[in-house]
């Protein structure tokens, strides 16, 4: 199975990446500013939505229904979309999906494509796969364009270039965008205008577009893309050929269900009451928009995640990234440290669930389990519980001898009154450890003092008191 770019290296070393990231002052400031802004906007909008908790329950319930009857909804979508003139393709993994998209484009005879921002195509590494086949796919989302021009990787699900500030973006445009104006400043309007002119040329000449989808509506065979810039709308309407790569969990049963999700998504994702552009299409409309319409459904580990009874709730995810914006770990490391297309709390569960925890055993440990992610999740994914469950799986899949022994020794000491009392009385050795702590305790004492151990454990006080 080829999972594409779900993880960037087998066993991405989060702890090491994170140690480097926390020392990058520029990165720290960029991420702190950006997440604080979105966090504040989201909180304000949630506060003005009186039925927010009911919406969350509804979102979770609709998605759970989809996950329980995925086969039925997928075939319903296939039937309706086919009836409306779309071609449906099925891909088990990244390489199958990339092969399907490559073949469709080759049949058009084109060598260029424009792209709507999409996590699914990011996940399968589509742009790279197309490049190897001689096809250039241009990202048209402003942030994705910044990433593509600088040969970087996205660091956030909704705001991929969140780790860059405008001075850095000016530099990237000046160095890598051939048609950038000579005297480009870092004024946001000037930067946006430069990107706009660059992209406009691509929109007008390119015959093939690639997108993902936020929702796939089983009842109508329609897809929905929500975006802020309108560049997605350009891609979805101007070219002759439109290929959408969609995860099988993106389904919702009916058009009416959008009532719930189009309230949850923009508030959670960008802190807006609605997305500036919501594009919905079903198959082909004669004389209007793309006439050669394809939908490529990908599994790529989703059925593996579905088989995990505790973990499957991660498939409710609507990719809003609210969990990233509130995560104190993400705020200090940024997205790249996770070494996965899906970073942050949701990435720390979704990625191991999809690729197998043995290939990403550090990710479930990339959390202090503070629970802020669960609190904001618009579809009530209990991320902390899934993290704990995946830690158990990680320990089983990749045993660590010294750690196993330590925890076994602790469990043994806690297994009976006499053993425990003896262990408590030996806690006084900490007085010695306070100053000469060996690893891994030294990781604690590097930045914090150890507490001065008490004269006697609590239970000794209790017993003496009873006698007195």
């Amino acid at each position, binding site marked *: 199975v080829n999972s594409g770019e779900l993880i960037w290296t087998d066993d991405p070393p*989060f702890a090491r990446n994170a140690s480097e990231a926390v020392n990058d002052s520029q990165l720290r400031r960029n991420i702190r500013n950006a997440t604080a802004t979105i966090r504040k906007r989201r909180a304000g909008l949630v506060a003005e939505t009186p039925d927010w908790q009911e919406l969350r329950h509804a979102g979770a319930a609709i998605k759970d229904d989809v996950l329980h009857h995925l086969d039925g909804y997928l075939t319903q979508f296939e039937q309706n979309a086919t009836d409306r003139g779309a071609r449906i393709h099925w891909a088990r993994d990244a390489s199958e999906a990339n092969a399907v998209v490559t073949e469709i484009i080759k049949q058009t005879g084109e060598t260029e494509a424009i792209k709507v921002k999409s996590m699914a195509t990011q996940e399968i590494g589509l742009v790279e796969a197309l490049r190897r086949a001689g096809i250039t796919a241009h990202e048209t989302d402003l942030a994705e364009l910044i990433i593509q021009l600088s040969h970087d990787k996205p660091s956030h699900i909704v705001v991929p270039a969140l780790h860059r500030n405008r001075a850095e973006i000016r530099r990237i445009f000046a160095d890598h965008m051939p048609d950038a104006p000579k005297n480009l400043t870092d004024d946001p309007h000037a930067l946006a205008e430069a990107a706009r002119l660059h992209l406009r040329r691509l929109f007008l000449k390119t015959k093939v577009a690639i997108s993902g989808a936020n929702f796939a509506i089983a009842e109508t065979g329609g897809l929905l893309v929500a975006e802020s810039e309108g560049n997605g709308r350009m891609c979805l309407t101007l070219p002759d050929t439109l290929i959408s790569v969609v995860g099988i969990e993106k389904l919702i049963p009916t058009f009416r269900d959008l009532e719930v999700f189009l309230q949850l998504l923009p508030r959670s994702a960008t802190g807006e009451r609605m997305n500036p552009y919501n594009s919905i299409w079903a198959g082909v409309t004669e004389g209007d928009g793309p006439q050669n319409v394809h939908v490529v459904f990908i599994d790529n580990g989703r059925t593996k995640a579905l088989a995990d009874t505790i973990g499957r709730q991660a498939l409710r995810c609507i990719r809003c990234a609210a969990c990233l914006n509130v995560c*104190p770990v993400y705020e200090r490391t940024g997205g790249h440290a996770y070494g996965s297309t899906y970073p942050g709390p949701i990435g720390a569960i979704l990625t191991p669930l999809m690729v197998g925890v043995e290939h990403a055993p550090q990710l479930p440990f990339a959390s202090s389990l503070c*629970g802020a992610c669960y609190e904001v999740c618009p579809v009530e994914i209990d991320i902390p519980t899934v993290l*704990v469950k995946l830690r158990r799986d990680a320990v089983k899949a990749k045993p660590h001898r010294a750690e196993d022994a330590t925890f076994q020794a602790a469990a043994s000491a806690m297994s009976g009154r006499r053993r425990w009392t003896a262990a408590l009385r030996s806690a006084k050795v900490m007085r010695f450890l306070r100053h000469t702590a060996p690893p891994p*305790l030294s990781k604690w004492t590097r930045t914090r003092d150890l507490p001065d151990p008490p004269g006697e454990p609590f239970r000794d006080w209790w017993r003496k008191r009873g006698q007195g």
Partner: protein
Amino acid sequence: MRVALFATCLVDALFPDAGKATVQILERLGQSVEFPLEQTCCGQMHANSGYFEPNLVRRYVDTFEPYDAIVAPSASCVGAIRHQHTMIARDAGDHTLAARAEQTARKTYELSQFLIDVMHTEDVGAYFPHRVTYHPTCHSLRMLHVGDRPTRLLENVKGIDLVDLPRNDECCGFGGTFSIKNPDVSAAMLADKMESVIESRAEVLCAGDRSCLMHIGGGLERIRAGVRTMHLAEILASTERETKKP
């Protein structure tokens, strides 16, 4: 009402004052309390590190099942008892234990929950003439949802100068073994928490979990910040006759 104290392994081993203070508060309110000596640990440290220990769940349930209520000076441990014990028992295939664990968890209370929801008191007759700031630990805030119970109790303490902790809902970075497995991220989070504590100009940082306080206090001590950490119970146990020294 037969009430048991679950001291938690950390308080039993390293922070007995929080346990003594809990006993003092309850007895002052006329509630006798027992400390069953068979108790050890709720198993959270193991579970959160990837080691599910159904034996620790069984020990907890066996020890505390006979009581009407169990009170613990830790939101984190009570959170684990309420949210992890049944999962761990079920995972081990022991559905009888899971059912018993659920029952026992239901009558296990964090200190501020017990005082307000069971004892129906917000004023425990405490006296503590110091400038104090309260850090709502993540598990008290988002797992147990204790809300403003601890601050309602603190507001009724005579002589106290209770001040807000800026950005108080942010995690301190402890996270159990997270602090060892990801020491640099943990330290970065700690730095921001210490900044908030110093900004509050408090002389005492108070919380309902000794674990988080061990981490924040260890950092404050390292930089000689001149701020002491005290468990909520220790402040509530202080009286004019017996003032705990910050």
